[in-house]
């Protein structure tokens, strides 16, 4: 006699609730870590703080460059062209 296949449990959208609880735990953990970092920054010297501010700006820009795969290295392209002009 033909048998039916055993029932196969599948993931449903309701199952994401399980992830939500894990997510909250991770976020709370990250928040605690950020608080520690903030305290660390406050103890830095004024100059270091200023440098950090500059770094933040560069950080954002560098992040964008890294994400899009942009690496500004004009020199290798410039010099051959420049020398070409000189020769001309």
């Amino acid at each position, binding site marked *: 006699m033909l048998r039916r296949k055993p*029932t196969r449990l599948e993931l449903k959208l309701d199952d994401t609730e399980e992830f939500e609880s894990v997510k909250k735990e991770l976020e709370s953990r990250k928040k605690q870590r950020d608080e520690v970092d903030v305290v660390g920054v406050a103890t830095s010297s004024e100059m270091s703080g200023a440098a950090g501010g500059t770094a933040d700006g560069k950080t954002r820009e560098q992040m964008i460059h890294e994400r899009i795969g942009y690496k500004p290295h004009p020199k290798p392209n410039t010099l051959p062209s420049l020398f070409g002009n000189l020769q001309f």
Partner: protein
Amino acid sequence: MNLDRLRKRVRHYIDQQQYQSALFWADKIASLSHEDPQDIYWLAQCLYLTAQYHRASHALRSRKLDKLYGACQYLAARCHYAAKEYQQALDILDMEEAASKKLLDKNLKEENGSREIVKDWEMSPASINSSICLLRGKIYDAMDNRPLATSSYKEALKLDVYCFEAFDLLTSHHMLTAQEEKDFLDSLPLSQQCTEEEVELLHFLFENKLKKYNKPSEMVVPDIVNGLQDNLDVVVSLAERHYYNCDFKMCYSLTSMVMVKDPFHANCLPVHIGTLVELSKANELFYLSHKLVDLYPSNPVSWFAVGCYYLMVGHKNEHARRYLSKATTLERTYGPAWIAYGHSFAVESEHDQAMAAYFTAAQLMKGCHLPMLYIGLEYGLTNNPKLAEHFFSQALSIAPEDPFVIHEVAVVAFQNGDYKTSEKLFLDAMEKIKAIGNEVTVDKWEPLLNNLGHVCRKLKKYEQALEYHRQALVLIPQNASTYSAIGYVHSLKGDFESAIDYFHTALGLKRDDTFSVTMLGHCIEMYISDSDAYIGTDIKDKVRKTLNTPALMKMLNTSADGNESRAQPVEEVNVCIETPSFNADKQTDAFQRFLLECDMHESDMMLETSMSDTST
């Protein structure tokens, strides 16, 4: 006139299936012997064999022979049974008590004559009584009175343990549960009716016919029946055992061998057909179905084969039901067709009609637990967990060792949130499957591994969950839901990078998986958020190094009021200046200034390009 020579000729013609010749001479002999009861009996036999049932019955009953002789009573009832006059057939058989009483009286008066008559008919009273019980069972079966049919078959077998037909009707129609079958076999008076060797022979042969799908097991052939190992019936039993152990390849090799030696072997066909379905051998099943319909159109197994073909190829369930229905019309008690009929509705999520078919199968096969199992499945799919549990319990009571039932009970427990019980039951089913052996094809059991993965995830046993899901992936690769499940476990562990990879793979296989889409979004958010600190630290280190460059410090001081966009080209200019200076040590300041202007121009253009890329 001595009629013995003519009587022998009648028997001879019957043996050679010359029924008309036999009938002609039997009729003449009956007249010449002035209607001797024995000759009337054989006349009736010839009429029966030529399908003239009412003439045969009348020949016996008009002379009241059915009341005097068991053999005549049996034959008269059989005539009415063949004519589908079940109640009348039953009435004739129910006169057994009166017949016995008169027979007893006659024996007292003419003891010698009675003994002589019995001897001449070459029938023992036990054999006749067994035949009467068998026929009574068939009549009750035809009248849908299964309990009485079962009792009658049992009685027939007790009177004559060699009466295989009664045993076959009990087992093939699943009138008894597995335990009842075993108990009944043990209760047969084999030692009283058989020699010692025959006891072992009969026990082995009958045991081979018992249920095999209720419990995975192996077959052992005793030495005394060594020559039977190649007997096709024994091979079919072995193949059937492999089939229910889900070892379809081995089963197929055996059934194919049987079909070569004996094409259309009656007992082999259902197993062979089922195996072809499991192995998806559509062409072979198509060919076999056509041959069966051509050769045996009145046999239900032929139309069962056609129905199974359409059920297998998919999307032709209407055709499947049409032909399965024809099979059940030819033989109402053909259980496999009813089960398949239910499956044809189940695959289309027609739960009510599927259940109706399964209920019919359950009524026809009291001793079979599969209809109960599938009814429970349908109730589970229609959000009736309590009813599902009820029917699973009934299935378990009939077949407590079947891993299929145990597995479904575990699924219900999972859906009810009882994960501990679910895990225990899943592992129990797994243990029973592994007991079969390493050679078992377990593709059919991939869902069990998948389900174990899910239940372990619920119990936060993430490593075990991953292991089970990976095993499931080995059995059935490229399954989107398995990749999704693995990704989900990784996300719960906080390993978002791996989770993203697995969800991407799942979506590559099944792009409309809403769960994977949703979770992929969540994981990317978490991954980005979690990565900020790492990138920030890296950037800070780079900036701290560049600050140590004296030239850059000087430039920064000069451009204290410059914005961030100005800072970028300044940095690039600084890098360019250094290199040309190194290469042009002897050049004039004017040339250096020229180079500086050119470099600044290039930098501006590159900055614009950079901004454009950023906006994209």
